[in-house]
């Protein structure tokens, strides 16, 4: 049911629906049930008074903060998590300083005069349509400010906040601003603000420092006054080749780059489900999945990247891969500096043993689930090819046998 829960977690009420709900409440005549007829007249008067008061309350601005200072609501987690999504053929291009200056208006000057180095990147969908723009500004002291500009790509979810957020209205457009503190280090965190200007979404985020709230407030003011919301001139210089081809198992096994790493013999009880060959600006991989009932296995086959290289583990250091050392919930038991490598270690093929596979095997009971077998998640390095495996409902010995058979 994880897929269903993840899916539903991403379903939220849109700004439009929220507005419809509130507008509907504003215009709906209010009626209270009257328990005793003899109190009808008095209660009718009270009801009329309530209607008048209720409509006047909802019509007024008092649900918002109208001061000129932004209200930074306490956030439960970083809003960047809410923006993860899959865009077919996504690619990026760096924007010139001139284009960036034109987009940000006085905010560009403010950042430059404050000592920031400014770089901007535009993201596009596979057909070259602009998805969004990210401006990253870095100070000499390594403070960072991100300004993200996009048509519909960014939303700051109301559920991001620990309490119902107060929305700043004193600036013109509604501005939802927040402050998130990194739970692992109270000195780290971000200040952020989101608003819409002429139909274009803006999101500003700065790493926490003494004047971060003031900095965000100044940036918001400058963007509101001088930002260019006409993004029609932002187009890619060229559209890189990309593909996302669904393959049969035979086609996957015949892939000239990665076919040798697709198992000829699958894990017991699992059947081929799908295969996808993905090529893009930053991706070159073959994905293959198998499943049966609640059991599944998925392989992602790609070249070793520089980022991957830091996750290749030394078997003599079990703290970097052995899940038995870290009880669930691992978010609170795995040290922060090891979380990435423990989450997805890469074993060299020559190091791979049953003991290592067993160190990655664990069970997790979910109501209504088929709990036979183990869950495992790790990668194996074959020369310069990495095979990432995610499996549920398998035995370590079978997994080892399958992995040893790859790359022949």
């Amino acid at each position: 049911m994880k897929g269903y829960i993840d899916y539903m977690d991403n379903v939220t009420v849109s700004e439009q629906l929220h507005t419809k709900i509130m507008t509907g409440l504003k215009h709906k005549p209010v009626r209270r049930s009257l328990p005793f007829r003899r109190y009808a007249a008095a209660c009718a008067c009270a009801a009329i008074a309530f209607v008048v008061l209720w409509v006047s309350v909802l019509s007024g601005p008092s649900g918002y903060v109208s001061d000129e200072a932004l209200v930074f609501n306490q956030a439960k987690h970083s809003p960047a998590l809410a923006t993860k999504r899959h865009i077919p053929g996504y690619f990026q291009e760096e924007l010139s300083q001139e284009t960036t200056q034109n987009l940000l208006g006085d905010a560009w000057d403010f950042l430059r005069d404050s000592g920031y180095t400014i770089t901007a990147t535009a993201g596009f969908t596979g057909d070259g349509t602009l998805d969004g723009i990210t401006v990253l500004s870095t100070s000499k002291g390594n403070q960072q400010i991100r300004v993200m500009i996009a048509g519909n790509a960014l939303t700051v979810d109301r559920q991001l906040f620990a309490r119902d957020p107060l929305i700043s209205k004193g600036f013109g457009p509604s501005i939802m601003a927040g402050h998130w503190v990194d739970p692992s280090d109270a000195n780290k965190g971000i200040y952020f603000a989101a608003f819409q200007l002429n139909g274009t979404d803006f999101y500003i985020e700065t790493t926490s420092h003494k004047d971060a709230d003031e900095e965000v407030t100044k940036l918001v003011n400058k963007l509101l006054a001088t930002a260019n919301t006409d993004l029609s001139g932002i187009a890619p210089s060229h559209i890189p080749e990309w593909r996302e081809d669904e393959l049969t198992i035979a086609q996957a096994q015949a892939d000239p780059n990665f076919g040798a790493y697709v198992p000829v013999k699958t894990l017991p009880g699992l059947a081929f489900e799908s295969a996808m060959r993905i090529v893009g600006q930053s991706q070159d991989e073959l994905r293959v999945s198998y499943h049966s009932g609640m059991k599944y296995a998925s392989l992602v086959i790609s070249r070793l990247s520089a980022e991957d290289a830091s996750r290749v583990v030394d078997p003599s250091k079990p703290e970097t891969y052995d899940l038995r050392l870290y009880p669930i919930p691992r978010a609170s038991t795995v040290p922060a500096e090891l979380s990435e490598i423990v989450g997805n270690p890469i074993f060299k093929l020559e190091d791979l043993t049953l003991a290592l596979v067993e160190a990655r095997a664990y069970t997790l009971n979910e109501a209504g689930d088929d709990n036979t077998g183990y869950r495992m998640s790790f990668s194996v390095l074959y020369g310069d090819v990495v095979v990432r495996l995610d499996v549920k409902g398998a035995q370590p010995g079978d997994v080892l046998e399958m992995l040893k058979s790859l790359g022949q």
Partner: protein
Amino acid sequence: MSDFSSRLNWMESLVLRHESRLYRTALAIMGNKADAEDIVQEVFLKVVQSRPDFQSDQHEKAWLIRVTANLSKSRLRSTWWKKTEPLLESYPAATGEQYDLLESILSLPPKYRAVIHLFYYEGYATGEIAEITEQRDSTVRSLLTRARQRLKTALREEEAL
């Protein structure tokens, strides 16, 4: 803070706290966005009309979900709805890995979808679901068992294709 502001804050706060949860519940039962959007709006109108006295956060949440489930059931019973086919295209986009499971769940009859959603997503026990949906505990348990069986069958058939 004035009474007016208190009242506004309370209502807006209630909407903000529950609108997405109720929308998900309505979407799970109705299977299409248009009906789910209508229902979640109706739920909050019911709050204004009946002004329930919530005893606790749990009571508030359960009351709102119960109204959502009841309004969904009413709409499912209406002649108009029976002539309308839910549109798969109207669902929010799912990732490839989620699609088969979602398709299987959404192909179940609404009564199964309701218990699946309340049990797995909202985390209610069968007894609590029985109270919310105004059914017997044994009926809820039976619905849940049958829903799981149907899901397993559907996923097996999917696999065989």
